[in-house]
Structure formats: C-alpha cells, structure tokens
C-alpha cells in the first residue's frame, strides 16, 4: 500500500529497474512524480532513484555542452559558462522549484510545462538514454515524439555550443515573474555575415510536446533579421502547431500571439 523506494548507485541499474518493473517510475527532481505519489496515483508502485554523480554532471567546453539529466535548473544557473541557458533555467518555476527541477525531468513534463526542453530542441540537442545494456543516443526531437511510450531514462543531454548571441529565448506567461507558459519560443539564429543560415526555432506549449517551427525556419533561410526579412517567417509561424485550450490560455490566443512574440524575439526589444 505504500510506495517502495529503490536507490541505485549506478544509473544503468536504475534504468534496468524501471524497464523491468511494472509501476516503477524514475524520480528526478520530483516536482511531477512526488505530486503524483502524494495523490496516491495507483500507477506508481515503486520510486527508482539514483545517486550516480555522473547523472548530475555538467561539462562545458568551447564547442560542446553536456548536461547530466539530473542537473538542476539551479545548477545551470550556478554555472557561469552556461549563461546562454540562464534565462531559460530561470523561467522554470520559482527558486525552490529550480533547486529540484532537472534537465531530464523537463523533457518529459507535459505541456504547458517543458520550456527548457523547447530550448534544447532549438539547440539541436542529442539525448543519451541509459539502459541496462549500455547507453544509446537519440535526437531530442525523436525522443519527444515517443516520450509517452514507456520507460525511458535519459542520462544526459548534449549540444553544440552556439556562436555568440545566436541563441534567443522568450517565455510568455500571464503571471510574473513566474508562471506557466502561454507559449515559449527558443531560436537558434546563426548568421553568415547578415544572413541567417540554418535557423532552428522551437516552441513550448504550442502542441502536445515542444515542437519545431519548421516552416518558419525555412522561411528565414538566407534572410536578414529585419522587419522585411522575417515577414515570411512570421506568416507561417503557427504552421504545424497544435496548441490546446487550457486554464492558462486558449488555443486561439496562443496562435494569434505567436507571430507577434516571434517577431519581438527575432527583432529584439529595441526594434519592435
């Protein structure tokens, strides 16, 4: 009748446990799982956790960033080399939630949660899955597409460090400074001289999972970051999205304001 808690030194053993035991769930930050445990969710029979230090490890080089899936938002905020992600990490809950919420947990948080995952999607992150028989890698986008299908344990997330200020992020909330997403937008905007090449744009809360704005990305290709340059992208900004009505906002409003916030993000505060 109570929940069993199993703690493993090695993440791989934890991964085995959740893939073999029915009702076993991995505890990362706890903000979602512990709530379900408190509500006596009958699907949760066992809590699996790991004390593996690698799970929380953060490694930043000039070219790559590697985030252990157990790294918390607070840990990211404490890492000076990760300044590009600070705005994103700060957008996740209040300080107490940031101390608990992890990179890995955010990848599985249902919409409208999951703003950090949207940022990682724009950064073209790769996830590493832990398993009893070794690790394997997967594009984040692929993971998001199948995240609800069964026991998956992410051990780390890696991405190439973007140049200079090519990464931008905006989260739109009703409540400030902390609130659930109306939507979030993350954009990687590499510039070749003044032209965008290979933009990646991802949205949070615009579908069941964070998703790419592929039409807008294509429309930005070779364009400059000014009103005329981004106009075609704005016109297709909402293509492929499927936002929901929820307690925060309606699908209609999300779709209506998406291009406006995309414009503001792309042009920067002083040009809008």
């Amino acid at each position: 009748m109570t929940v069993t808690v199993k703690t493993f030194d090695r993440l791989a053993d934890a991964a085995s446990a959740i893939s073999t035991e029915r009702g076993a769930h991995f505890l990362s930050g706890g903000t979602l799982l512990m709530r379900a445990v408190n509500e006596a969710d009958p699907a949760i029979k066992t809590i699996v956790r790991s004390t593996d230090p690698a799970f929380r490890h953060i490694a930043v080089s000039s070219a790559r960033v590697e985030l252990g899936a157990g790294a918390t938002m607070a840990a990211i905020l404490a890492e000076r080399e990760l300044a590009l992600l600070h705005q994103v990490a700060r957008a996740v809950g209040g300080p107490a939630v940031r101390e608990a919420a992890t990179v890995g947990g955010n990848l599985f948080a249902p919409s409208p949660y999951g703003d950090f995952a949207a940022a990682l999607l724009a950064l073209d992150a790769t996830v590493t899955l832990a398993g009893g028989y070794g690790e394997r890698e997967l594009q984040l986008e692929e993971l998001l597409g199948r995240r609800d299908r069964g026991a998956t344990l992410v051990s780390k997330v890696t991405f190439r460090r973007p140049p200079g200020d090519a990464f931008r992020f905006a989260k739109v909330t009703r409540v400030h400074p902390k609130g659930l997403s109306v939507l979030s937008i993350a954009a990687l905007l590499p510039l070749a001289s003044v032209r965008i090449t290979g933009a990646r744009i991802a949205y949070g809360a615009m579908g069941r999972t964070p998703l790419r704005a592929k039409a807008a990305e294509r429309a930005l290709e070779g364009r400059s970051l000014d009103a005329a340059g981004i106009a075609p992208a704005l016109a297709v900004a909402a293509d492929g999205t499927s936002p929901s009505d929820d307690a925060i906002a309606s699908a209609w409003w999300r779709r209506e304001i998406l291009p406006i916030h995309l414009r503001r993000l792309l042009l920067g505060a002083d040009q809008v």
Partner: protein
Amino acid sequence: MLEMRKDIFADERDDDLREVGRPTQRQDILGHVTGTSAYYDDHHFANLLHLKVLRSPHPHARIRSIDDAAAARAPGVKRIIRGADVPVNLNTLLSLIQFGKDDEPSLATETVRYRGEPILAVVATSERAARQALELVRISYDPLPAVFDVEDALKPGAVSVNPVYPKNTFDYHRKYDHQKLRFGDVEAAFAKADMVFEERYQMSPIEHAPTETNGSIAVPDTNGRFTVYTSTQALFFSLDTSAKINAMPSNQLHFIGGTVGGGFGGKVDTLTEPLAILAARLTGAPVRYRLSRHEEMQFGSPRGAERIYIKDGVMRDGRIVARKVRAYFDSGAYTRLSSYAVVKCVAHIPGPYTIPNVHGDVYCVFTNRTPATAMRGFGVTALDFALECQMDKDAVAIGMDPLEFRVLNAYRDGDMKAHRRVAKNCALIECAQVAAERAHWPLRDEFRRMSSRKGGGEARAEAVADRTLKPAPPGAPRTPASSSQRAAYERPPADAKSPASPARDMPSPAAPPPSGSTHGVRRFSSIFGTRRR
C-alpha cells in the same frame, strides 16, 4: 503609502482617543513570524484517521448502483460512510435562520447534480490508504442531461437541477422566483430620457484560494462529547450545522478554531465538519477531513458567476433618471448562500447614486455546477463591476467626464434610496474629490465644491423628479456638455522603451475634447439598440 485625511469630517469625530486609531502591532504577529500560530491541523492525535470522499465524475446523473465491497476490505480502511449513514442527510446552510428549504445532502444517494458532488466517504489509517480505497469503489451511473447557463436554466422545458426547487430558481416569499425592487416608474422615465442604454455583463466564478484549504479534525472527547478543530470562518454556524446533520445536541460539540489560513468567504459552508464528526462517532477515533488543493479549486464552493443586465435612462445634463437591473446568480446545484446574495444585490441597486426610478429583478438560479457561496464583496462585487462600467459608458455617451458624472449623481445625506431608506453618513463625493486631487484628475470647481452633506433630501428629490418629467427639447444639441477626459486611444501611445512614472506620463485629462471624433464610443445598447431620440 497610506495617508489619513483627518481634516475631512473632523467635526463629526472625537479624535481624543488613546488606543483607537493607533497603528498597534497585531496581537497574533509573533505567532505568525515564528510559525507557532496554531491552525486547525496543528493539533496532533495518536491514531488519527483520514477521510476522503468519492466525487461524482458527472455533472448530472442517476446513481444506479454502488459497489464498495472491495474498498471496505482494502488495507487501512476502517469505515465506509454512505448517504444512508448520515443522520440528517439534507440541509441548507441558512436553515438556522429560517431562510430557504433543506436541499443539499451531505452524501448524494440517488442523483448527483454537479461534477464533484460527494457520494461516499472512506475513513482509513492514512490519506493514502483512503485514496487508494476510493479507486476500488465501483459506481454505475445513468448520465442525465445537464444545464450550465443561467438563462438556459430558466427556459421552459429546461433540465430540472434541484428537486427542492424544480423550476431552477429559489423561492422568495413563497410566491416569486426572484426578489423584486420597485421604486418610481422606470418605464415612464425611459420614455422621457434623452438616451437609454442597455448592456450585458458577466462575472466569472472565482475561487477563494486561501493558502490553507478547508479542513477539520473531529476528536472523541471524554463524556461523549466531540472536540472539533476547524478552519471555519463562522464557529457557531458550523457547530450548529454539524449538530443538525448529525442529529446531536449542540452542547455535545466543542468547536475550536479562530486562527485560520485565509477564508475570503470560502470557509463558511461547513464542508468538512459534519462528516468528520460522523466518522469520529462511527469509528471512535479522531478523524481529519481536509480538502486537497485540487478539491478546493474545483469542488469547494466558489464565488458564483453572475449575469447582469442594466438599462439606464440618462439626460443630457448628466442626470440618471432611471435604472433597471436584471441579474442572475449562478448558484450551482444547491442553495448554500446564494439566496442571500440576491437580497444583498437587490439592496445594492442602483449603486451609490440617487436615481428617482429604479427597478430590479434578481434571480438565484440552479445549474449543474459546484454550488456557489459567499466571497469577499458577496452579492455586490459583480454588481459594482456592472454598475461602474455602465456609469462609464453613460458618461462617455453623453460626453461628460466620468468622475464628474458620478459626483453629480452621487447619493447625499437625506436622499431617498431605492430600498426606501433615507441615505445618511454618505461620503462618496468626498472619496471622489480626494482621489481625483491625488491622481491629478481635474474636477471642475462646481464638482470640487459639492458635498455629501449638502443638497440632498427633499429638494434634490423634487428637482430630480421635476426634471425627469421634462423631456429634452427636440433637436437639442448633441454637443457634450463637458468632456474633460480624453480617451487615451486618441493619443499617441506611450513610449514602450521608457517606463516612466505613470503619474507624470499620464496625459492631462483636461485636454480639449476630441474634435468630433466619437470613435470607439458606444452610443447605444449592444443588445437591443434602444437608443431613443
């Protein structure tokens, strides 16, 4: 931040006081900042049992069968309580003061009338065990059609929500389905008014959202009494309600509370005490029943939504000569306190203004949603929203400054109010003057000189009535008498980059009226378009 204007009404006050008027520290503050203030759940008992209720997933359904056998055998379960176990399973809160008929069961037996209505309770050794046992209860329902809109609920043939009030309205005086207010002759006044406006307003339901949810602990005491630690906002109200439902003499109950984590009206309904006491009687053990946050948000009673129609007759010189209000309180499936909200609403019509012709019809309507209850501003908040938006529209339409329009119509000492009591101790005008001065909202001299203490009573009533009956001359100029507040959308927007102090940035409301542009101004009813002349 707060300034006391002792100079105003000084002649009516004796300020020679020692303790009253001083910013003395709260008696309870040390407890609050040390975390030692004792709320109901800060009392601990060995072998405490926990009560959780099973709630209906349907807004309206007949209960065909309940199978709780597996739940009764579940680990930790001490007792299952069904409607038949409740000694008096029908109550209405205001029955203690003989207002309304018993219409709400503690646990539904044959029919559920809102999503979230309690059907049975599990008492177990932990909240977790109780929740797990609830998962094992099997209930089969025949879903029934439901009604969610107050006006739909009043249509002929509408689904009947509450069998005690089959027509979906509370009974007033055993003869009407609403409470009336009649003062003067609104129809005659509308016929003579320069302009008539009718508008529709919709208040949302609102959750009280106190940081502490509703809850109580009932403890069997020595000598057959029960001590009840409770979050109630109304100790004897809850005690007497609990005694009635449990068919117990009230002196068998000892209620302790008094320190509560916020209420705002949401802790009057005695949602948890009766069942906690019943469970303690049936098990002989202390029992806690507290609402989860999810329950508090969706199934604890909210402030009810209200739909309000207001029709005003206004003269070009700025006087309101008639006001007609029709309002519908969404009571949800049961009465609780909404019946009284209607009375309070009727008494509040037409707002703090002297209007010679007033007509009100206010309904308490049953729908298939969580029963509503009192909340801060009960019966008045929504009406004030509607009235004050309407006042603004009236003022804009006749081209008058909205604040001057209010001051002109504000009630004064001696005026007869619509509920037929003479106004006294008024201070609306002074509030308007003081706020306007602070906010640099320019009131013209004649409005700055007005007073709640001058010009009210017979003279004003006669003047108002007299002029009411005098129709405006045909073809009277439509030029606004004054329009000192210029709409901001007629101006360039503020510079978004420099959020300067709003006070300094506020464009002078004294700017000349927009030349001929009435863009955005609603001139007549959005509903019936009843602008006359």
